[in-house]
C-alpha cells in the first residue's frame, strides 16, 4: 500500500459559524483507488466538510491538497480542472439537453473549448461521450432528452459527467439518496468498479449503512465536527463510541449483515 501515492490530504480543516464549530481540526488522507466513506449523525459536519473539499465553502483554517497541489479556498471550477469530479446529493444535470449532450458539455469544458463560437458541438467528442455513457451503462439512452430520464438513470448520467475530465478523485455527496434499493447497489458497484479500474480515489458521504459497509475500504466517522473514529468497516463497526453515537446497539444490523454475507 505504501507505494500508492496520496491523492487527497486534509490537514486540520476547521470551520465555524458564529460560535458553532461545524468542523474542527479534521485531518485525513485518501489514496488512489481507495473508497473512503464519511459518515456521522445529522449535523456532524459532513456537508460542511464536503463543501470545503469541493470549493463551495472556504475553511477558516486548515489545508486541502490534491496530488500535492493546494486547493484550499479555490473555486469549484478551478478544483475541477485540478482533476476532481463531483456528484451532488440531488443529481445536477442539464435537463434541456440530450444525455449525450450533457456529457459533451463537460468534455467541451475539459477540452478548453468553452469560448469556441463557431464549431459544431454535435461533432465534438461524440465518440468519447459515447464511451463514457457505455461505461455507466447509459449508451442506449444517448439521444434521449435528459429531462425524461428516470432518477436512477440521471444519477448514472451524472457519474458519466463527473468522469469526463478523467478525474483522479471523485467526491460523491450521498450518491444513493433518493434511489430505490436495487438501484443503490447497482450504482455503488458501478462506482467501485470504475474506481478500481481507473485507480480513482472516491470520497463519499452516505446515510445508508448497507452501502457504506459493503463498498467502503475505509470509514471516517464525524461527530460534532470532529473525527471520532477512522478505520476499516470491521474496526468502525466494533468501535463502542461509534455504536453509542451513531450506529446504535441493535442486533438487527449485525444479524442482517451476517445473513447477507452467507447468502
Amino acid at each position, binding site marked *: 500500500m505504501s507505494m500508492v501515492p496520496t491523492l487527497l490530504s486534509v490537514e486540520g480543516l476547521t470551520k465555524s459559524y458564529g460560535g458553532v464549530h461545524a468542523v474542527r481540526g479534521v485531518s485525513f488522507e485518501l489514496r488512489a483507488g481507495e473508497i473512503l466513506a464519511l459518515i456521522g449523525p445529522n449535523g456532524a459536519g459532513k456537508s460542511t466538510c464536503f463543501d470545503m473539499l*469541493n470549493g463551495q465553502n472556504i475553511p477558516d483554517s486548515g489545508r486541502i491538497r490534491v496530488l500535492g497541489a493546494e486547493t484550499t479556498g479555490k*473555486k*469549484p*471550477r*478551478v478544483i*475541477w*480542472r485540478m482533476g476532481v469530479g*463531483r456528484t*451532488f446529493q440531488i443529481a*445536477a*444535470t*442539464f*435537463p*434541456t*439537453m*440530450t444525455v449525450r*449532450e450533457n456529457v*459533451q*458539455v*463537460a468534455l*467541451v*469544458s*475539459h477540452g478548453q*473549448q*468553452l*469560448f*469556441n*463560437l*463557431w*464549431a*459544431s*458541438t*454535435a461533432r*465534438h467528442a461524440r465518440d468519447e461521450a459515447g464511451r463514457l455513457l457505455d461505461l455507466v451503462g447509459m449508451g442506449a439512452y444517448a439521444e*434521449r*432528452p*435528459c*429531462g*425524461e*430520464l*428516470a*432518477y*436512477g*438513470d440521471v444519477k448514472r448520467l*451524472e457519474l458519466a*459527467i*463527473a468522469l*469526463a*475530465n478523467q478525474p483522479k478523485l471523485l467526491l460523491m455527496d450521498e450518491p444513493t439518496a433518493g434511489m*430505490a434499493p436495487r438501484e443503490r447497489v447497482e450504482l455503488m458497484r458501478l462506482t467501485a468498479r470504475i474506481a478500481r479500474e481507473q485507480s480513482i480515489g472516491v470520497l463519499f458521504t452516505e446515510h445508508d449503512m448497507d452501502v457504506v459497509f459493503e463498498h467502503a475500504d475505509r470509514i471516517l466517522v464525524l461527530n460534532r465536527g470532529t473525527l471520532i473514529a477512522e478505520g476499516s468497516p470491521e474496526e468502525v463497526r466494533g468501535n463502542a463510541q461509534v455504536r453509542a453515537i451513531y450506529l446504535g446497539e441493535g442486533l438487527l444490523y449485525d444479524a442482517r449483515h451476517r445473513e447477507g454475507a452467507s447468502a
Partner: protein
Amino acid sequence: MAFYVVQFLTGLASAASLFLVASGLSIIFGVTRIVNFAHGAFYMLGAYVAFTLTERFSGAFGFWGGIVVAALVVAAIGVLVEMVLLRRIYHSPELFQLLATFGLTLMVEDLVVLIWGPDDLVGRRAPGFKGAIDFFGQNIPSYDLFLIVLGPVVLGVLWLLFQRTRWGVLVRAATQDRDMVAALGVNQKWLFTSVFALGVFLAALGGALQIPRDAVNHAMDLRVIVEVFVVVVIGGLGSIIGAFVAAVLVSELNAFGILIFPKISIILVFLVMAVVLIVRPWGLFGKPEAPARRTPGLTVNPWRPLTANERLAAIAVLIVAAALPFVAGNYLLTVGSEIAIFVIFAVSLHFLMSVGGLASFGHAAYFGLGAYGVALLAKMAGLPMIVCLLLGPLLGLVGAAVFGFFAVQLSGVYFAMLTLAFAQIVWSIAFQWVSVTGGDNGILGVWPEKWAASPSHFYWLSLGIAALAVVILRIIVFSPFGFALRATRDSPLRSEAVGINGKRIQWTAFVIAGTVAGLAGALFAYLKGSVFPDNMGISLSVDALVMVLLGGVETVSGAVVGAIVYKALSIWLVSQTDLSKLVLGGFVVLIVVAFPKGIVGTLEAFMHRRRKSSSSASSPLLTSRIESAE
C-alpha cells in the same frame, strides 16, 4: 441653510407616495412571488378615480372620503384582476408573470385615456392643508408636512398589521415558505387575493394622495413603476422597512440631485442602485434568496440544428422574401425593411433570454445605442454609410459590456429590474444631454447613401443583414459556447462543477446580444433618417420581449416568426385603431394565459405529438423505465 432644509422636507414628502406604492409591490412579491408590473397602473388609476370623486363631492369629507374610496375601488379592481388573471399564472415562469402584468399596464393606459381624456387633470387642494408654512423665509406647503407624517404612520400601521394580527402572521409565514403554509391547511387562494388587494390599495392610495401635488396624467404609471423598482431593489424585495428607507433615500437623491447635477439628476439614483446591487444584490434590508427552485420549463425537447430539408425550406423562404421588391410598392418595402430590422432585434434578445436564460427588460438600450452611434458618426464625423454601419453597433457593444458586467451578477427578477434601470439611464442621457444628442428633438437627417437609398435596395440590405444575423446566432447556439451558455442556464451548480465560469459566459452572451441589437438600431436609424430617445425606451424593450414570447421562448427560431407576425400586426393595428395599446396589451395577456409556448412552440409540440403517436408501438420499454423511477 433654510433652503436645504426645505429641499430635504420636499424630498421626505415625495417619499410618502413612493413608499406606499413600493410597500404594496413588496408585500405582493413577498407572498405571491409576482413582480407586479401593473402596480404603476393601479397607482395611476387611484389618482384618476380620486380626481373624479373629489371633484364630484365637495367639502373636506368629500375630499378625504373620495381619496379613501378611490383606493378601495381600485383595490376591488385589483381583486378582480387577481382572480381572473393572476390565479392562472402563479405557476408560470416569472417572465410570463412580468409580461402579463405589463400587458395589463398597456391596457390601462389606453382605458384611462378613453375614460378621462388625454389631457393633464389638475385636482383640487386638500382641505385643511391649502396653505404654506414659513420657514426662515422659505415656504413649505402644509400638505407636504401632512405627507411627511403620513409615511411613518402607514409604516406603523403595516407593522402592527403584520405583527399583531393572525392574518399578518400568515402573510409573514407565506413570505418565508408558502408551500409550508399551504401544507398547514391555510386557504392560499384567499390569502393571495387579500394580499394582492392590500398591495393594490396602497398603490392606489399613493396615487390618490398625489392629486394636490401633481397633475394627473396617463404617463404617470411608467414613471412611478421605474422609481418603485429602484426603491424595492435598493430596499430589498419583500421588506417593508427596506421600502421605507429606500423611498426616503431615492426621494432625497432626487431632491438634492437636481441641485448638484441638474443635467444628470436621474442617473444619480440609478448609480446608487447599481452600487447597492453589487454590494448587496438582495437589497439593504432583503435576505439573500435561497437558490430558486428551477421553474420547470414548458417543454424538455432538446434543441437540434435544422435538417437538410428544413435548411432548403429556409433558403426558399428567404428567396421568396427577396423577391418582394418585384411585386410590392414602396410603402410595403419600407414596412418589410422595418420587419427585417426587428427580426435582428428580436433574435438578439432571444439569444440572451432563451439561450442564456436572462430576460432583459431593457434590451432597447443597446438598439438605441447602435442607432445613436450611427447618427453621431454620420452627422458629426461625416463617415461613409458602410463605416457607420460597422462602427455604430460598437456603441451597443460598449454599453452591453459595461452594463452587462453588473447585470449578470444577478438573475431572475433582479436581472430584469436592473436591465430596465440601465435602459432608463441610457434613455435619460439621450434625453438630457441635449448638446450632443439633441435631447427630445433627436438627431435628424441620417439618410442612407445613394446605393442604399431606394426602398428596394434598403430592403435587400436589411433582409441580407437579418438573414446573416439569424444564421450567425444559430451557429453560436449550437457551438460549444452556446452549449456552455445553456448549461449555465440549466444548472449553475453543475456547470460550475464542470469548470464553466458561468458569469463570464453570460457576460459574453450579453455583449453578443447587445452588439447585434446595436446593429438593428444602426439600420433603423438609416431607415427612419433620424434617432430619438424613444429608440431606447421601455416600450421598445417590451416590444422585443413580446416578439420572442409570441414566437416561443423555448424554441430556437421562434423569435424570427414572432418578430414578423408582431411587427406586421402592430403596424397594421396602428393604422386601424387609436386603441393600439389596449389591443396589444390584451394580446400579450392572451398569449401568456392561453398560448405560453408561442407560435413555433405550439407547432413543435403538435409535430412532436404526432411523431410520438405514430411511433408509440416501439416504446413500451421506455415508459416502463420512467414509471419505475418513483
